[in-house]
Every structure is written in structure tokens, then in C-alpha cells.
């Protein structure tokens, strides 16, 4: 429905327009649009979440930006309408894209049907009010001013007319990207997402045309926190999309007016983040980006695995009950090495958890044996070797395999092998003491030197006996079984 607007074709069908009255003051010759000798270009606009393409220019230009302010009843949520005040008929406002050094001429057209005057404050502008001081515009009028884009970056623009919180909360915010002279690295997709708050008289979801509530605004208690102008604007068929193996760049802005966004993509790590939209500083491997009201961030993420990745404000009550939720749908083949998906669903693994807890306690240097419930042998029943081997295997696969490896071969130069270990075979009493006391320092196993640290393992005597029995009788080892009494004796000597 929202067609591509080429500003060049903007129709001046407003009988009441008085024409563009330029500011009375003088500006530096190079910054005065009226005498500019730069090549003239017209800003190209696309509705969010789409973004106009890269500037692809190696020289500065005089960029004409025609922004029409419209006050429109728009969909806010299911059954809920709201009169948004917009830059270009859309929330967020139209995405402006220029290049560092460009002369940007803003023509702010306030539609005759508007109830109110409006202006524009662009954070990329250096000058009084960021342009707001020059653009207070009555309904049915047009204001014009120009500025040179001196600083590259992603900047918020918004209406600066009092009461400002009301104008901003009603939708008057957008982003302007000032590309660095050399542009930004190419990516596969660019998207435009902007967060904002809506302060309705009615509670979240209360149907009908909602009015603005100044008390809620004053208390910073929005009924809605939304991405791109409505609840659900970026979900289902409106979700952002990408294919496996692509790079996605999100231009994320926070219109506010009041709340800092904790922007997060569930199930992703943000590969690169240009915080505050400053293009010269990059953070890598970011989980959650704090974006202040009136600020923005350039976010790049790679998509190695398919799935639906949910965009949220990680102040989660806003995502769960106020609308701050969107989706990135990635399609393509899976990659189990990165993400396996669910491997199994089995009975409760309580025994394994006990072993992990004991191991964790040992790593923490705890000196007391944790009081774990143990599966005691029934009185008078001697467990078979099979049972002992199975109990020992479980302990090994929870506590030992990470270093000695599941196949008992260890890691060359780091962790000594247990399979075929002459060190184990040579001294049985020493072998029993190792899990009880730990082992630190240089050892020679099968002719190879190892020098590492193994902490004491806080298992019961029976568990130690079982895991030693498993190790002594697996992978071709045939070193005999270890009894609980042997472990008890060794423990007594150790003390």
C-alpha cells in the first residue's frame, strides 16, 4: 500500500503553500543551498523496514530531502487505532541516507490537514535546535533549511515542538544515515528498525481510537513499546528475512521519548555493533545493545543457522506485554556443528547431575564430600563387574572425559592417555591415589612428558572404585578391578 516515494515527484498540490521561505540570516557560501554548485540529488525513500541503497558516490552532492508531516489514524495493535504524527506518513519516519560532506537541504512540508505545527531536529545537524529553530511550520506550510553533514554516523531525527514528549511519542522520529566517505562494508540485507513508546489512555489492547495520556507520559509509563509503529509490525509475514550464511545489517534507532532500549536478538550474537551509530568504533560479539532514547546503533549479524530469531527489548516486560518484539527469519540448511537442535528427550538424568555437582564442587576446591544421595549396593549383594563398569562409565563420561577424552586417549602434550597407559599399569596404589588426591606436575606416560593439573575428585569411595575399575578395564586395558576397601585404605593413607 505504501508505494515507493521518489521525492522528486512530490506533488506540490497544496494551494496554501507559501513557497519556501529561506532563513533570513546568511550562511557560509559553501553551506548555502541556494548557491550550491554541487550536483543536485533527491532523497529516495522506502517504507521501514526497508532502507534506501548505499549512496555509492565518491563526491559530495546537494541532497534535497522532502519530508511531509502527516497526522494520520493508523493501526497500533489489534483493534486499536491511534492518531500518529509522522514524518512521511510512516512510523518511524522516512530513512534519510546521505554521504559525509553532502549539503543536505531539508524541506519540511506540514500537510494542510495537520492539526499542529511541527519542526525537525536532526542529530546530524550542528546548529540551533538541530534544525528545529529554523523549521517550526504551521499546517499547510513548508520550511526549508540546509546543513552540511560533517559527521558520519547513524542519527535520530525527531520533532522538537513543545510538548516534545508528546510529539515524539506520537511517532515523530526517524533515522538519518550519514555514510562515511568510503561507505559501509557491503552486506546482504539492510533493515530499518526503530523503537518507540505510545502513551494511550486505554490499557494495552484496549480497543478503539486511543487518545494520548499526558500523565502516563509524564511518569514514563507507556502502554505500548513498539518496533516500527505498531504491535506486530515485524512478525509473521512482516518478519525480516535472510538466508543461511548471509550478513544482515540492522539500523536500529530508539525514538523514545523516555526509555532506553536493551536491544537483543534471541539466539544470535551480534557480530559487529557500531554503538551510538558512530561508524568509526566497532564492538564485536555483543549480546545486548543499550540504545538510549535519541540514539541509534548499526548492528551486523551473521546467520550461520536457520530459524526464527526474535528481536526484543530485553527489558522483557516490554517485549512480553507491551509489543517490543520482532522477528528475523533465516531459511536454509541447518548446521549441526553450530547448533544441533534437540538431540534426545529421555528420562530425568538425575544421576548425571549428581556427578556434575560433585565435579563442580571439586573444581571450587571444596574440601568436604558433598552429601549426594548414592545408590548403595543392596546389603549382602556383591555387584557384578558389569554393573560396576556401567556405574564407572557414567562417572567417567561426566567427570573425566573432558580431559582424557571419551576414548581414553587424552590430548597429546596436554592430557595424558589412560588407554594403554604404562603409568597406570606400573603402580596400582599410585593410580588409586590420583583421583583421591589429584596430580600436579610432570609425569611421563608412554614416553611422553605431561605437565598439568588434575584436581582431587570429590566422589564417594565406591564411586572412585567404580570409575577406576572402568578405566582399568576399558580400551584394551586389563589392569584388574579396584575394590572399595582399596580406595578406603588409600584415602586413609592420604590423610
Amino acid at each position, binding site marked *: 500500500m505504501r508505494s515507493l516515494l521518489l521525492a522528486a515527484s512530490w506533488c506540490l498540490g*497544496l*494551494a*496554501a*503553500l*507559501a513557497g519556501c521561505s529561506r*532563513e533570513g540570516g546568511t550562511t557560509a557560501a559553501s553551506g548555502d543551498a541556494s548557491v550550491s554548485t554541487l550536483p543536485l540529488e533527491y532523497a529516495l525513500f522506502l517504507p521501514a523496514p526497508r532502507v534506501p541503497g548505499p549512496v555509492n558516490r565518491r563526491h559530495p552532492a546537494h541532497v534535497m530531502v522532502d519530508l511531509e508531516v502527516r*497526522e*494520520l*489514524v493508523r493501526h497500533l495493535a489489534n483493534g486499536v487505532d*491511534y*492518531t500518529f504524527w509522522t514524518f512521511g506518513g510512516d512510523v518511524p519516519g522516512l530513512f534519510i541516507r546521505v554521504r559525509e560532506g553532502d549539503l543536505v537541504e531539508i524541506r519540511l512540508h506540514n500537510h*494542510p*490537514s*495537520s*492539526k*499542529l*505545527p511541527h*519542526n525537525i*531536529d536532526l542529530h546530524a545537524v550542528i546548529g*540551533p*535546535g*538541530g534544525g*528545529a*529553530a*529554523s523549521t*517550526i*511550520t*504551521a*499546517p*499547510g*506550510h513548508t520550511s526549508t533549511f540546509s546543513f552540511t553533514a560533517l559527521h558520519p554516523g547513524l542519527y535520530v531525527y525527531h520533532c*522538537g*515542538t*513543545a*510538548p*516534545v514528549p*508528546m510529539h515524539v511519542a506520537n511517532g515523530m522520529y526517524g533515522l538519518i544515515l550519514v555514510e562515511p566517505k568510503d561507505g559501509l562494508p557491503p552486506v546482504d540485507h539492510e533493515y530499518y528498525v526503530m523503537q518507540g513508546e505510545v502513551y494511550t*489512555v486505554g490499557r494495552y489492547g484496549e480497543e478503539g*481510537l*486511543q*487518545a*494520548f*495520556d*499526558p*500523565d502516563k507520559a*509524564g511518569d514514563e509509563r507507556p502502554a505500548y513499546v513498539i518496533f516500527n509503529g505498531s504491535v506486530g509490525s515485524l512478525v509473521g509475514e512482516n518478519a525480516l528475512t535472510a538466508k543461511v550464511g548471509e550478513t544482515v545489517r540492522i539500523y536500529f534507532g530508539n525514538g523514545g521519548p523516555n526509555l532506553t532500549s536493551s536491544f537483543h536478538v534471541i539466539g544470535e550474537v551480534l557480530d559487529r555493533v557500531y554503538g551510538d551509530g558512530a561508524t568509526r568504533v566497532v564492538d564485536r560479539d555483543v549480546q545486548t545493545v543499550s540504545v538510549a532514547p535519541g540514539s541509534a546503533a548499526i548492528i551486523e549479524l551473521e546467520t550461520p543457522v536457520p530459524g526464527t530469531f526474535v528481536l526484543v527489548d530485553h527489558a522483557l516486560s516490554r517485549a512480553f506485554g507491551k509489543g517490543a518484539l520482532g522477528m528475523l527469519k533465516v531459511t536454509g540448511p541447518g548446521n549441526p556443528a553450530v547448533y544441533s537442535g534437540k538431540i534426545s528427550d529421555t528420562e530425568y538424568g538425575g544421576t548425571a547431575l549428581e556427578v556434575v555437582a560433585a565435579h563442580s564442587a571439586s573444581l571450587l576446591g571444596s574440601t568436604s564430600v558433598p552429601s549426594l544421595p548414592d545408590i548403595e549396593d543392596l546389603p549382602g549383594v556383591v555387584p557384578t563387574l558389569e554393573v560396576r563398569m556401567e556405574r564407572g562409565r557414567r562417572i567417567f563420561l561426566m567427570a573425566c572425559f573432558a580431559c582424557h577424552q571419551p576414548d581414553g586417549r587424552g590430548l597429546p602434550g596436554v592430557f595424558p592417555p589412560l588407554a594403554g597407559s604404562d603409568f597406570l599399569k606400573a603402580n596400582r596404589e599410585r593410580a588409586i591415589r590420583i583421583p583421591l588426591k589429584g596430580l600436579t606436575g610432570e609425569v611421563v606416560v608412554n614416553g611422553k612428558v605431561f605437565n598439568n593439573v588434575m584436581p582431587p575428585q570429590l566422589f564417594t569411595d565406591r564411586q572412585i572404585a567404580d570409575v577406576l575399575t572402568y578405566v582399568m578395564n576399558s580400551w584394551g586395558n586389563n589392569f584388574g578391578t579396584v575394590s572399595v576397601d582399596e580406595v578406603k585404605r588409600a584415602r586413609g593413607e592420604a590423610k
Partner: protein
Amino acid sequence: MIHGLPRAFVLGACLTGSAGAEPPPAGMALVPAGNYAPLFQGKNDPATIRVPAFYIDVRQVTNAEFLGFVRANPNWRRSRVSPLLTETGYLGNWSGDVELGPRAPADSPVVLVSWFAAHAYARWRGLRLPTTAEWERAVSAGFTTENGAAEPTYREAMLDWFSVPTPLVLPPAGSGRPDVYGVRNLMDLVWEWVDDFNSTFVGGDSGDDSGLDRNLVCGAGGTGVRDFTNYPAFLRFEFRSSLGANYVVPNLGFRCARSP
């Protein structure tokens, strides 16, 4: 600039008199003397300003009434009006010089008139435009008491107006609920010109007065403000500050006033 205006306004002087118990002039209501608390205040400004009693139209001037003015004063016809006194959209919702047409019902408020035109009309009727202080004093009254701010329904009605866009064809003037003085639609039909519309600025490019820096925008626009919660007052001040005397706006009309 006003050499072409009719002389009828001189008669207005005859209408002045004491504000005793005599009934208000037809179509007008008496707003008794009282205090007006300006939105913006410098350190040395008084908290309130005394506003003497005045009469004000109970509703806005309608298209039919303004047509009478235009018929009587051909220089204010669309085709003949001086471009110095108005933008080209003057009476742009009328069908012709002296034809209202479907977009300008006879009993709806006249809009798309400049301050000069409103001013001339008031003088022609022997009246004047209300001052900002008078207008704000009038709108501060509620439906049932003299303090609208204390009446939730009054402020809601005001805010509701901002939650709907301006309709293409305006409803009749005076169709709203009367306030405690009998004045209607001060805040829920169209904006209204005041005599000194450009005396207070928020976020404009000039207008510094009384030593207060009013050339401030955005959050700074709140500097020197007494009551931050009065959003409608901010909106009115911003609206006035966006205007020039020759501007015509599709939702800006006027009503007249006079002193007793």
C-alpha cells in the same frame, strides 16, 4: 496597510459601557475579571496577570458571517485581496468569491483567513480580537467551575481533540458543550487567532522578550515554564508561535471580543 478597510469599526466605540448587570451583547458571553497564569514566566514576572472583564463570542465566526463581510467589503474577496495581507490559500475552501460551496458549510467556522482578515472582520463588526490573556483566561474555565484543570472531563475533551485529525469539512460552530460562562468550542473545533498571537514564542526563530530566552527548542522549550503538565497550553503556544500574520491555515479560525 489598512487604508482599504471599512470605517464601520468606528461605531464600535459607541458600544462600550459599564459591565454592570446588563446582559451581554447578542451572541456573546461575559468572562468576569480574573487572573491569567502565563505558561512562560521569567524570574521577575508576576505569577498571574489580572485580566479585566470582557465579552467574547460564544462561538467562532462562521462562513456565512464572514461571507457577509466579504460581500460588504469587496477588497476582501479572494480575487481582489491584497497579497500583502494574506497567503494565496485565503478562503481556499470556498467555491468562489462569494460562494461557500460544499466544503464550507454556512454554519461552520470560517478558516483559511489571515490575521489581517480576522482583524478587519472584527473591526467591521465594531469588535476586536481577544488578547492571548483573555483567550487563555476564557479557556481555563471548565464546564461547571471556573477551573477547568480540576475537571477531568474538561481536560480529556481537550486531549481528545488532538487524537483525531482535522476533518475535511468542519462541523458547525457552537455545537460543543458550553463552559461555565456559556462559551463553546474553545478547545475542540479549530484553533483561533488572538490579537497578539506573536507575543510569545516557543521554539521559533525570534520572540525573545522580558529577558527570558524563548528561542529554545525541544526539551529546552520547557525553560521558564510554570506548569509542565498543561500539554494543551504548550500546544496552543506552539501553534501561535508557528504563525505569521498573513498565514492561512485550514484549521485556524477566530472569534471576536470586546471590552464592556
